[in-house]
């Protein structure tokens, strides 16, 4: 376990992955945006506004995916007391919050033309809002407790409690028949969406994944450096105090 704990090793690994991930992000995003906005048909029901989908749907997926990353990191941190896992959770949280906010905002913008209102209190929308609050709560807990390790473990407990919300997001549309679309891509019996729409959707999803990888690794490196700096500052602050 502690072989991967080594921050130097992690840094090396991150440095190796980062350029590839960045390249993949640029390529996938370019292709995805092109197909989404220029080379895919408007929907026969929704017209041009269907193009919001290519931003909305991958964002919603990533909101849940990132939460799971955070939850796994939290579990690792709590059970194996792995400091790098604490940092991983901390690095993932703001990215997830941004994805969630993006899914919410694009959903709301899409809702106005489709449902005639920005917001309804249905199961899917509500549980995604709860997800946003969970991200915010996680980050707030990190902020609120000065002692970093303690803060991180408190936040990890919250993250694990919040995992309950993920299946609710996923299955709320099936449990309560509501306004929101049920799953058409990620379902057990294969996607039910037309190929001309599926392709740009998957490209965009890939781009979001690559984006996540880039920002996540970059933030991890940042966190590690920040910790190192904090330690160094403490050395200079408290060194003369020690009873030599």
């Amino acid at each position, binding site marked *: 376990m502690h072989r991967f704990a080594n921050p130097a090793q992690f840094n090396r690994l991150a440095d190796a992955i980062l350029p590839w991930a960045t390249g993949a992000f640029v390529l996938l995003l370019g292709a995805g945006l092109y197909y989404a906005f220029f080379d895919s048909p408007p929907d026969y029901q929704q017209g041009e506004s269907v193009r919001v989908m290519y931003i909305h749907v991958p964002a919603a997926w990533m909101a849940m995916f990132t939460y799971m990353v955070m939850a796994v990191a939290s579990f690792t941190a709590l059970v194996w007391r792995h400091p790098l896992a604490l940092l991983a959770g901390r690095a993932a949280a703001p990215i997830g919050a941004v994805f969630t906010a993006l899914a919410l905002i694009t959903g709301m913008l899409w809702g106005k033309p489709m449902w005639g209102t920005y917001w309804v209190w249905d199961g899917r929308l509500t549980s995604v809002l709860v997800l946003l609050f969970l991200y915010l709560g996680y980050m707030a807990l990190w902020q609120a407790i000065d002692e970093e390790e303690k803060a991180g473990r408190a936040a990890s407990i919250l993250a694990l409690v919040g995992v309950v919300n993920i299946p609710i997001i996923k299955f709320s549309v099936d449990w309560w028949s509501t306004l929101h679309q049920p799953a058409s891509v990620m379902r057990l019996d294969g996607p039910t969406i037309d190929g001309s729409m599926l392709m740009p959707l998957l490209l965009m999803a890939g781009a979001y994944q690559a984006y996540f990888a880039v920002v996540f690794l970059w933030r991890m490196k940042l966190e590690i450096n920040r910790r190192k700096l904090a330690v160094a500052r403490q050395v200079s602050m408290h*060194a003369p105090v*020690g009873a030599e």
Partner: protein
Amino acid sequence: MGNDLMCRRGGRIVFDGLKFEASAGDFICLRGSNGSGKSTFLRTVCGFLPQAHGRLVWSVGGDESDHLPTEHFIQSGHQNGLKPNFSLRDNASFFVSLASGETVSHQDMRAAAAVFDLEHLLEDSVQYFSSGQRHRAALMRFALVRRQVWLMDEPTVGLDAANREALGQLIANHVAHGGIVIAATHDPLGVEGLELNMDDFQPKITVADEAWL
């Protein structure tokens, strides 16, 4: 019993390389200047704080273990753990039933109160106690519950001369009966024992390189 302990709080190392051993009948008097880590050490022994390094070993009846089962010790810290709205009797009887699941007899209660001359205050609500009376009420627990190991953080605070003497006797008596007492204090306690000076275990490098790991 403790071996090469290191303890960290808020990312800073508080003490390092501490070794100590205590066996039945020992009194360990923790000394050291303010902030040297006496309270931190006691809370580590209680199991509240994890040690960053080193091992605490307890051997009870031949078995060695990392954690001392809570049936074997009792502690009192900087806060007194009393509910101001309750009478002293209620506070005490709750403490006993939580610690041992038993109810305390009227007689035992009075005997325990007598140690620090609190009989006349038993029915009074703790919020009207003077600071010294309050502290004595907190110390009453050592006379209420039988435990082998006593951990005391600054037990003399606010006590007048007569009660300090009573405290010294209580400790001496416990030690004489095979108990172990570890007490952090700045005052003389009038009990013979080993001294452990926390100033001797200040970390050489205040922040270890792998502190963040």
